[in-house]
């Protein structure tokens, strides 16, 4: 089965947005790790999951690490909620309750 994964990164004022699409799993998680590690000056990191089709536990661990790193750096970390499978896993693993999750990207851009 062919899988694909894409990270679109952009800076909106003081907000860095990483929009994910495709499948975030063992094979593709390194690509997200790399994008998270890139050095930019910003106050809030938003991971947009709305177009993410699939996430597994390795993908999840990248989100957790990004969250821990952002907190350590004194930045806000938020996610835009994804489709059902993604949200189910976030809920199952307790991430949903511990991360700032918004319905849409607009909410996170305007409240910054």
């Amino acid at each position, binding site marked *: 089965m062919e899988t694909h994964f894409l990270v679109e990164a952009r800076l909106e004022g003081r907000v860095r947005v990483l929009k994910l699409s495709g499948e975030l799993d063992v094979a593709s998680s390194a690509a997200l790790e790399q994008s998270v590690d890139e050095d930019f000056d910003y106050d809030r990191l938003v991971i947009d999951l709305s177009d993410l089709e699939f996430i*597994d*536990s390795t993908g999840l*661990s990248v989100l*957790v690490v990004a969250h821990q790193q952002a907190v350590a750096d004194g930045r806000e970390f938020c996610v835009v909620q994804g489709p059902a499978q993604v949200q189910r896993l976030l809920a*199952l693993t*307790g991430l949903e*309750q*511990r991360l700032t999750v918004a319905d849409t990207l607009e909410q996170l851009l305007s409240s910054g």
Partner: protein
Amino acid sequence: MFNELFEILAEAVTVRDPGGEIVYANAAALAYLGFSSVEELKATTSQSIMDDYLVEDEHGRPLSHSEIPSVRVLRGEPPRPMLMRLVSRSSGEQRWTFLKTTALRDEDGELLGALTVIEDVTAVKNAEIRTGVLAESGRMLAADLDYHQTLRNVAEAAVPSLADYCSVDLVDEQGQMERVAACHRDPAEQELEAELRELPAARLESDHPVARVVATGTSELFSELTTADLEEAARDEHHLGILHQLGPRSLMIVPMRVPNRTIGVMTLATAASQRRFDPQDVELAEQLGRRAAVAVENARLHTKLSEIATTLQSVLLPRELPEIPGWELASLYRPAETDLRVDVGGDFYEFLEHEGTWFGVFGDVTGKGIQAAALTTLMRTGTRVACRIQPQPAAILARLDEALSQESGHALCTALCMCLHRDHMVISSAGHPQAIIVGHDGSLREVPTPGPVLGAFPDATWPEDNVSLTPGELIVFYTDGVTETPGDGGRFGVERLREFLSQQAGTAPASVLNLLDAELTEFTGGAALTDDVAVVALRARPRSE
């Protein structure tokens, strides 16, 4: 006028009369053939000039005087250019020569003689051989992880372009030299090749040239071997007999080096071809030696890794399930296939008894292969330790979370921890897919309440659920490798798993898992698993048992 023109030509030109004798040679031709004047050349027959050389065509077939282009042309045959290899019998020097002959005729078409242009193409041909040998060896080195075969391939790449025979010796694990490959150019000399292969390698503690090359890492060249050299190299009469049969003229020993050490040597020699090796040959052989060394080192590391993996595997894999009174159990464990031949993964389970009560932990460390597997041992032994300190599922998970958080590398772990009682279980979840209970009528329930994944949050706590199970009801624990298994129609998915389980009411745990294994194999079309798969199924026995 023609004479003057020919004299200034860089190409060597000769003219033979119809009788075949050389009547003219320009300065370049005289120099090429090694004569100081035309008179001196004329005093020598062309047959005797040829006798000074070993003459072969480009495929190594010996050429006779009657086959050279000028002689053919004088016989009235059509002119056909020829590439030949000349090896001086006295100096062992090798030259590649390209001959083009034209018939010289008068106005009436009467044959006056044959004009031959001799072109020295040694440099071009050597470069071609060099490229060829290296390219061939590159292909052969890449082909095989069995280094004995690889070295046989390398020996074959060197023969006959570079040498007439070649042998390869390696320093083995005990520090002894071991002959691993040999190749002889002449297919008729199979027996001799076998003898060469069977010859014991030199002892490293001796002052044999092979031992010197291993010690110093520096090549040795014997451009002209003497009988004394052979006698010195031979271990005994039998050995000397073989050396005489091989009849080496020129010999070089090059190291097979990896950074910091020499792991073996290649011995290359000329015999029938009469060539004498020069420093360029040594340089080419050294390149071949370096490439072979890297291939051997890679193959050895690979073998070592496989051995380590096999050892680790026995430690890292979940143990066989124990007998638990009052319960029927079965497990399915299929690690993802990696390129490391390491059949271990991040899925794990452990069941243990503590003061008459049985506990179980079932989980999945993120990532795959050895790294994930190593953390599963932490989780499994951690469960045993935690159980002794505070034998409660939520408390065990808290201790596992603590242990995992102390590990560097940001690994996460999802797990279900359970305590087995006669008619119920206490289950606590750390971000793990819910277990599925199959009721007597095929109805499904999913338990327990989700709790946070291990290794992610500093302030986490875990809820505990009391789950009642009547005898005959099946509870199935699985890792996401099951539901995420990819196939042609997307992923296997929770729905497909639920659908499958809903038809398993009343089936014994072992049978259910056999059927599920077959179902997964069918779903993937037999393709290799990309993630670990683990499933444990339990069923309470009826009270009377």
